């Protein structure tokens, strides 16, 4: 998966608890993205980053925050998890901002009870 790892790979948590998902890359790519994948919706962009400390919102950013203090790590935080955030979360990286340079990680399955 092009030098992308996601952790944890599976997580079960309870409503109202904070959760942080980590995306780590070894490619030194400038761009990093967080998507969620749900039945019937394909992938939807949550947040993305175009450099260290440079982030912006995507289509479904409510309830999520991100941080990027180092090139290699992009963290996605659910401050207070809700059942509607049960999903599979994918991180992607890219050398440029172009779609055809994006590579996806293996995903994290998050279940909020």
């Amino acid at each position, binding site marked *: *998966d092009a030098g992308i790892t996601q952790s944890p*790979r599976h997580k079960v948590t309870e409503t109202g608890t904070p959760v942080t998902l980590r995306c780590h890359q070894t490619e030194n790519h400038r*761009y990093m*993205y967080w998507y969620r*994948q*749900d*039945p*019937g*919706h*394909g*992938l*939807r*962009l949550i947040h*993305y980053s175009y450099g260290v400390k440079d982030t*912006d919102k*995507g*289509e479904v950013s409510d309830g999520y925050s991100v941080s990027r203090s180092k090139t290699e790590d992009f963290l996605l935080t659910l401050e207070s998890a809700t059942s509607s955030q049960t999903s*599979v979360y*994918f991180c*992607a990286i*890219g050398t440029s*901002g*172009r*779609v*055809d*340079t*994006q*590579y*996806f*990680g*293996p*995903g*994290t*399955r998050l279940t909020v009870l």
Partner: protein
Amino acid sequence: GESVGLHLPTLSVQEGDNSIINCAYSNSASDYFIWYKQESGKGPQFIIDIRSNMDKRQGQRVTVLLNKTVKHLSLQIAATQPGDSAVYFCAEALNNAGNMLTFGGGTRLMVKP
């Protein structure tokens, strides 16, 4: 890896036959279209893209056709192989920026030996 267990439209083809996967897109202003392949337990993988000023583009064993009049996109896979079994997603965007994609719901391709 992770994948989403979905009640997806399914196309079942015999090994060696050609496959055609269809997609209807929603925004007539979209300028850029992409097909992704997602194997079980993995993240999506870029297959081929096409700009709106083209009707057809060919890759290795794959062809994408674009019909802007009816907002329809198709992916043709020649001589389908067992390794082609996966979920295929189309995506559209106003441009080729990685933060601008809108994904479709996906089609599952099953290749029978």
